[in-house]
């Protein structure tokens, strides 16, 4: 192996799938051999069976839909507020000086610690789930987007000025497009974190959703269902990652990929 030499596409797929296979292999080995009892860890087959019954008998698809709705809802609100604020902060230094200290402080507040407060404030309905995801995502988005916008190549900004652009034009036609690919990359990252917040929100005070199902299964000591729920989250994450990457390639054909 040589440092930084790219690997051919086919080999990449084989390697990537290989680790998955190995992972499932080890899991199968420790469960089917009886080394780890089913009470702690269901076998892959058992997890699949539990999953099947979840889907067919317990309307798990509905839970999945509810969870996706919550993540996307909270995340879209956070992005819709956070991206413009971040862009303004990165572009206009007085705006940054005004908000940055607070945002830096707020982003270290653990979102899950807000759950009790949020329940007090808005109850255990959808607003609480959306609020938690918002708190968890918004400040991260703001900070990361402002850093991205602030890092816009100065020579491009100056080129725009010499072509007659004013502040507005520079923001709209240089800083915005220059930041867009990295902003999308940031959103992809933060969406991943939003998934952890939604599950936490659903573990406490929810009557539907993947997190609620996992909590229910614990009461029944059904590790198969719990594992199936966790795997479903992973698969959805993988799918959104894939979608985001495809979207970026489509939106930003000019960026070297």
């Amino acid at each position, binding site marked *: 192996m040589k440092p930084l030499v790219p690997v051919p596409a086919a080999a990449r797929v084989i390697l990537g799938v290989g680790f998955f296979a190995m992972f499932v292999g080890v899991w199968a080995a420790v469960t089917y051999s009886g080394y780890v009892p089913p009470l702690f860890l269901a076998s892959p087959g058992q997890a699949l069976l539990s999953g099947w019954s979840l889907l067919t008998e317990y309307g798990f698809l509905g839970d999945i839909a509810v969870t996706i709705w919550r993540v996307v809802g909270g995340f879209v609100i956070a992005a819709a507020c956070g991206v413009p604020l971040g862009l303004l902060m990165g572009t206009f230094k007085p705006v940054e000086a005004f908000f940055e200290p607070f945002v830096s402080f707020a982003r270290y507040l653990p979102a899950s610690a807000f759950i009790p407060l949020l329940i007090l404030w808005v109850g255990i309905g959808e607003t609480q789930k959306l609020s938690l995801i918002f708190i968890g995502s918004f400040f991260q988005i703001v900070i990361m987007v402002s850093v991205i916008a602030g890092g816009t190549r100065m*020579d*491009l900004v*100056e*080129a*725009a*000025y*010499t*072509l*007659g*652009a004013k502040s507005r*034009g520079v923001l709209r*036609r*240089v800083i915005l*497009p*220059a930041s*867009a690919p990295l902003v999308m990359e940031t959103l992809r990252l933060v969406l991943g974190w939003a998934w952890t917040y939604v599950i936490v929100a659903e573990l406490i005070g929810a009557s539907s959703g993947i997190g609620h199902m996992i909590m229910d299964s614990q009461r029944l000591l059904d590790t198969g269902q719990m594992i199936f729920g966790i795997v479903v989250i992973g698969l959805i994450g993988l799918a959104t990652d894939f979608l985001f990457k495809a979207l970026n390639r489509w939106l*930003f*054909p*000019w*960026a*070297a990929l």
Partner: protein
Amino acid sequence: MSNKTLRIAGVTRTFPGRGKAGPTLALQPTDMTAAPGEFIAILGPSGCGKSTLLRIVAGLDQPTAGSVTLDGAPVTAPGADRGMVFQSYTLFPWLTVAQNIRFGLQERGVPDAEQQAIAARFIARTGLKGFENHWPRQLSGGMQQRCALARALANDPEILLLDEPFGALDHQTRELMQELLLEIWEADRKTVLFVTHDIDEAIFLAKRVVVMSARPGRIKADVPIPLPYPRDWTMKTSAEFGTLKARLMGEIREEVRKAAMA
């Protein structure tokens, strides 16, 4: 054709020091006048304040003292009347060649049909036909700088500020670019300030070569280049070219040595 006179009067620039480092005097009081349509090369060793001077004329930097005026009107901010091409590649990566060239026109609200016509004209003049819809990253360095030149020219500026625009190109490409620039200047007669540290380039292109001293920069000599236009590459081997080159080398050698020792 440009018809405004550029006056640089007593322009000085001191950069404030950072931390322990004291302030840097980058430019001593500098006076210079560019007649409408004149092609002036600014020649000097690296670090002597050439870019600083050009950036002040562009309005991208403010002089510590002195003033820049265009037909008497003070220059305080960048504007479309002073187009610039930088040494680094500054095409907007998210715009195609044609869109890059139209950037300034769009900013000024020129009607769409006119934008297209102007872009097409400068694409043809800079030899970029067939590359209109390419992204900058798909172009060679020479093509990117041709596109940057077309982008600046499309705005029809009074003055063209070129800061070592061919500095990052290989020798052969550089010579072709010089000929292209000359061809455009001979046709349009725009005022050009062309910064370079290449003596041949300065003589081949300019009507006047302004030699700057090592840092802190000041104008050390102002040498007219009496070679007739239109010029072509064969002039680079003429006796007159040789004489001018010897003179400028004499002027600049000392400064380069000072800059290297500093």
